[in-house]
């Protein structure tokens, strides 16, 4: 945990989350992950495929695939009075938190009309059919779907990817969440649509005071939408900071490499720097620092001990045992 040394006032605190295959003895996929999100804050969770970021997100609502279970960790969620209490992920579903999924093409039940889909959440919250339909119409308008009355009767397959994702967001909003979990919601969309959806999310969270945990592999997207960012590698969080600070002055070698490989108009060279090698797959994580095999700054010590996330200041933490040395070298 980083600057959230004061748990009061936070919306959700995830502590020591560990997720593994099988029912207890299998391969760890997410290890000892702790995150905090304040009300109205957007936390970005960035990492490569296989880093465990999606699983972390899904654990919050207990939506793990059947072969994978949460083996350790607690989730504390603030109730209406702002007091944090340990929550069962299943209880959080549609009850304070909801999720925006990644693939708009397969996330909408093809046998239900759009209006019914959006109303489903409202009905679950106890609204009557008429009320839920009105809510659905309101939400469809709110997420910017043109001609919402007609679209209520549409089937999902009649909508484009961007529109479907808006419907997805409307569905997530239909249960009046305080926390929106976004699992790479823009990855499957075209660039222009991506931009629109991100703007929509920004607007909605602002207008409704929503907290967001935004998972992505794209640092550029994270840079735009997240207030704070946590970087995951091989199942662990290796750095956490205010987004701007993270991008401007990354500390952990992995984050540095990530930031360096971000395309941006400032960079002048012909080739984008890349990180040699590939991330280790779960089950064959190296001992000690998992990034060591690919790290430009690795020394022998790095493979001895798994680095813990160490606070570097009020607002950031990094999991590199050489952090201090590397800062010295730089200056």
């Amino acid at each position: 945990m980083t600057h959230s040394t004061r748990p009061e006032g936070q919306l959700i605190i995830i502590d020591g989350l560990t997720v593994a295959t099988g029912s207890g003895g299998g391969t760890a996929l997410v290890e000892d992950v702790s995150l905090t999100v304040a009300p109205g804050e957007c936390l970005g969770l960035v990492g490569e495929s296989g880093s465990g970021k999606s699983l972390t997100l899904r654990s919050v609502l207990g939506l793990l695939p059947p072969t994978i279970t949460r083996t350790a960790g607690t989730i504390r969620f603030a109730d209406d009075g702002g007091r944090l209490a340990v929550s069962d992920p299943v209880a959080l579903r549609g009850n304070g938190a909801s999720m925006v999924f990644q693939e708009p093409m397969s996330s909408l039940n093809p046998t239900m009309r759009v209006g019914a889909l959006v109303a489903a959440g409202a009905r679950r919250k106890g609204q009557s059919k008429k009320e839920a339909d009105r809510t659905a119409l309101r939400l469809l308008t709110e997420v910017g779907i043109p001609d919402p009355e007609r679209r209520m009767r549409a089937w999902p397959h009649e909508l484009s990817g961007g529109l479907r994702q808006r419907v997805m967001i409307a569905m997530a909003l239909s249960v009046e969440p305080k926390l929106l979990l976004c699992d790479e919601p823009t990855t499957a969309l075209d660039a222009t649509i991506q931009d629109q959806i991100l703007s929509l999310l920004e607007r909605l969270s602002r207008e409704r005071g929503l907290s967001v945990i935004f998972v992505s592999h794209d640092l550029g997207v994270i840079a735009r939408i997240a207030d704070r960012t946590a970087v995951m590698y091989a199942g662990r969080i290796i750095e956490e900071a205010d987004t701007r600070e993270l991008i401007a002055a990354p500390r952990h070698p992995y984050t540095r490499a990530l930031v360096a490989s971000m395309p941006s108009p400032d960079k002048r060279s012909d080739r984008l720097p890349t990180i040699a090698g590939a991330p280790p797959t779960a089950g064959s994580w190296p001992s000690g620092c998992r990034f060591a095999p690919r790290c430009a700054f690795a020394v022998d010590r790095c493979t001895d001990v798994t680095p813990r996330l160490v606070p570097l200041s009020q607002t950031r933490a990094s999991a590199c045992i050489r952090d201090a040395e590397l800062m010295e070298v730089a200056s």
Partner: protein
Amino acid sequence: MNDLAMTRPVPVPVPASLKARRRWRRGNGKLIVGGVIVAVYLLAAALAPWITHGDPQLQDLGNTLAPPSTEHWLGTDSLGRDVWTRLVFATRVDLRVGFFGTLIPAVVGSLIGIIAGFGNRYMDSAIMRFSDIIVSFPLFIFFLALVGLVGPGEGFLFFGPGELPILIGFALISWVVYSRLLRGEIRRVRALDYVRAAQTGGLPQHRVVFGHVLPNALNQTFVYVFVDIGLAIVAVSTLAFLGVGIPLDTAEWGAMISSGRAFINTNWWLVAAPGVAIATLAVGLALVGDGLDDRIKSK
């Protein structure tokens, strides 16, 4: 390489090789069990005269409906014929009809499937429509009616009386699966990018497609054939039971059940034994097919 690929993170599965090995072993198990069963039947059919009394039609009207004894292992039927002998000789009939009743549709269907797969749109569409109609018709009922009306007819070559109409009927009905299988495979491979590329480069389609289609399609066909033989045997005996096709007098499992039915209270084995014979053989064949399927899929 910085792998920020646009793929969803995949939950780590059981290593593929482990699953494959397990499957292979399961397949082997099925193959062995099924293979033994089928081998026993084949042997029984071949050695019929030596492991039985020799003549399935030999009547002994003084000793009808006798219970099992050392002389008559399964007793005798209503005409005094030895049930065990009839049971074993019936293996020949059912195996023969089952085998050819599957082979012919398989060959015919595969050929049609090849035509459909390589043909142009119209040909393909026409054949597909035609097979849709065939499938949706109550063909067995038609068949029932037809064979019933036409009568069993005489035997032909080494086929006994009533077998030929059944084979024709099967040929008319069962080819569809095979044609769809082959056509599907051909179409699938034809649509693959590199085949198209080869085509534009001037390579004749046939060689490429055949090279890739044949192994996979043959595998699938082969696997299904085993199941189909079992189904054919069940179908033949069902038809015989209904009095269609093979004459009731013949030593055939279904016919035996039909004639034994009247005495089921006292001599229930007259009904039970042939049924067990049918089911066991069919299951054995299916196990062989399934085992082969497992082995193929685990590669």
